[in-house]
């Protein structure tokens, strides 16, 4: 099976974020990592390849820094990578990101495309489903298991409140992968070395521009969310805080 994995670079989970001057995005001088579910999507693609043969291709749309996620994918075992390289990809809405990805792979024939179920920065929860619609393919979201059947696949979807569901579907298809579907592997030293010789195709903004349209939604401004509760911050040395907490547990929460 030939599998494309869409991977996005996002600010590291613990990175302290600051707003840019316009207040419409964060300041870019933070550390980045692979969007968590995308790492699971890559792992799943590698496992499918190990079982059924084929090829795993990683793709990202983002500035030069985002090449790092492709390097990691190649080091873990992806066969090749596609980098749509331009800082302008950061500001696209989900429809335009999907259009750009679709344009970059128009001459390829994949059996499966994996995306993460949502990104940690924008959190649209849309790109994979939009991509499926643009390609005219079926899709399934929040996937926790994938098996090959005769001429298609059988996937396990996560539903709300602990429910799951199996779905049979034909190929080619787009699946959005949920974190926890598998156990991630680490890149090996050999893998990291081999990655240097693997093909990385660059795609410019100009090449995909004809496929894009104006953004249909626009972030006017970002702000720090409003608090919904009156939070009391307890301060002091750990021992003092422990005493204050016990007081709250007894007299406010009344659980002691």
């Amino acid at each position, binding site marked *: 099976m030939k599998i494309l994995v869409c991977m996005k670079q996002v600010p590291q989970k613990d990175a302290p974020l600051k707003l840019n001057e316009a207040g419409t995005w964060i300041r870019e001088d933070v550390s980045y990592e692979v969007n968590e579910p995308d790492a699971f999507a890559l792992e799943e693609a590698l496992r499918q390849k190990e079982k059924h043969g084929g090829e795993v291709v990683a793709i990202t749309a983002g500035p030069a820094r985002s090449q790092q996620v492709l390097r990691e994918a190649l080091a873990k075992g992806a066969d090749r990578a596609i980098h749509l390289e331009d800082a302008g990809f950061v500001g696209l809405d989900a429809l335009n990101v999907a259009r750009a990805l679709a344009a970059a792979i128009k001459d390829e024939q994949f059996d499966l495309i994996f995306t993460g179920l949502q990104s940690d920065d924008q959190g649209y929860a849309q790109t994979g*489903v939009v991509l499926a619609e643009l390609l005219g393919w079926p899709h399934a979201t929040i996937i926790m298991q994938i098996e090959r059947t005769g001429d298609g696949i059988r996937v396990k979807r996560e539903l709300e409140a602990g429910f799951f569901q*199996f779905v049979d579907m034909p190929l080619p298809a787009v699946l959005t992968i949920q974190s926890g579907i598998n156990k991630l592997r680490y890149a090996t030293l050999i893998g990291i070395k081999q990655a240097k010789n693997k093909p990385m195709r660059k795609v410019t903004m100009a090449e995909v521009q004809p496929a894009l349209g104006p953004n249909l*939604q626009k972030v006017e401004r970002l702000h720090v969310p409003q608090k919904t509760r009156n939070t009391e911050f307890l301060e002091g040395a750990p021992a003092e805080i422990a005493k204050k907490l016990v007081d709250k547990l007894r007299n406010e*929460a009344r659980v002691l």
Partner: protein
Amino acid sequence: MADTILVVVEQREGKLNRVSWETIVAGQALARETGWNLEAAVAGNNVSGLASEVAAKAVTKVYAIESPKLATYTPDAFAAALKQFIASSQPKLVLMPHTYQVRDFIPKLATAMGRTVITDCIGFKKEKEILLFTRQMFQGKFAADVTFAGDPPWFVTFQNGAFRADKIESGAAAAPIENVNIEIADAVVRNRPEEAFKEAKQAVDLTQASVIVAVGRGIKEQKNIELAKQLAEALGGEIAASRPICDSGWLPMDRQVGSSGQTVAPQLYLALGISGAIQHLVGMKGARTIIAVNKDSEAPIFEIADYAVVGNLFDIVPPLIEEIKKVKPAS
């Protein structure tokens, strides 16, 4: 003709979920703000009973969108049916709850219509005749005010809990119901879903617990779970966790709190090293008292905490256990 807001509600096994009622409340608020008409639609097979339930609320009309192909949910059938309906009824604004089902098909629906969805909104405002929808970004660390830059219909989904279902307004008289039968060709529906099921039987029922100590990725290593367990024990409570902890197998799945786990409402919820992603918060924000310990003073969990400790949980928890033991001798 006046502009229309259409709320598409969601049913499962013949019942509307609560977030559907919340979305009607959002629609009622938007209708007041804009002066637009508010209509509702329910899609499925034999949904006239549900339609009349919705018709009792303050809406001007309810559509029962029906097809045998809508009896079981598939993204293909739902997107096809709603596309046909929306293309002919031309609402300006289409609202849906941000459920797993809606997020499965609404990007497809909007794309098929050449439109966009602003997903997972927590509110809206109107400034100089322009509607802004507020949604979380960066895992809840920021909120964004987002506008539509293209033509209607504009699609919006609202997050679970963003509006209060008990604020719903009833209508003076029942709204008229119109049945809309949709033809969906066989070849349209490609996925073949099976019945939903629950994995294993749950060994613990966290919904009954009055004290819950929950750990998140801040606990760092599996062996440190023991520390949180000691705290739970000292308090006579249950241990629970955020999703990554259960994904890693550090605690069993039935200890997971959140949208894909259990929804709890204890007297006390003590969160250790949990950032406060919305999918976690929806499962625990009904707790009476929330205490959060997190080393990041800007962690979103603090937005809903009653008592906050900014610090390293490994410094705080051991003396806390000692203090608790002083006032509450082990039983």
